[in-house]
């Protein structure tokens, strides 16, 4: 199960498992972002390269306009995936 919502403070909240079968839902929300935003990973249990691809495309699009997404509250395994992919050099992770 995966869900993605934007809360009343504009924070993108990810919940559950972002795998290759769930990227359409994630892409739909991220492609609508027009300003810099925080993405909260607190309740995201799992991500694979398919999810990284959606985040990469979002960051590339926003950076062209001088904006960015910042990723917060990752669990240890999700953070490991970002580190191995060297995405910790692309995103601000807190």
């Amino acid at each position, binding site marked *: 199960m995966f869900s993605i919502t934007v809360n009343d403070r504009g924070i993108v909240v990810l919940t559950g498992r972002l795998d*290759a*079968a769930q990227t359409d839902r994630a892409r739909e929300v991220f492609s609508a972002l027009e300003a810099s935003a925080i993405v909260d990973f607190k309740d995201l249990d799992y991500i*694979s390269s398919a999810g990284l*691809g959606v985040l*990469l495309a979002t960051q590339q699009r926003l950076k062209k306009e001088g904006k960015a997404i910042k990723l917060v509250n990752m669990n240890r395994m999700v953070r490991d995936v970002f580190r191995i*992919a060297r995405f910790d050099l*692309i995103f601000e992770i807190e």
Partner: protein
Amino acid sequence: MRRQFEKDIRSLDAIFGFLRKFADEEGIDGQSSYVLNLAVEEFFTNIVKYGRGTGNEICLEAFRDGRTVTVRLEEETPVPFDVTRPTKTQFDVPFEDRKPGGLGIHIAREMLDGLSYDYVDGTSRITLIKNLER
């Protein structure tokens, strides 16, 4: 445990269910379970996208021997197609031009303790090994 899955991205939920049941029965820890989920997803989706097999199904087999877990993905195919070969990652490409291609196999390879491919009697077989802490 052994089960066939339709060669379709929509099979992922059932595959994760299979791996969850295996992890529960064998007492696999959460971190190792994450690695196995990720590795199986990356290779399964690669076969779905690029595989040259003739059948509509992929067979998944998982077993534990002491502190070692083995998961195999098998596909009937007329030609060998080794998706475990090191892939080109784009670490040297400038950020704005970078694409995620090849990343999944790289991540799986880094997180696993063993990975091999063999082709016998018309069947491609990918073997994933993960050593457990306990």
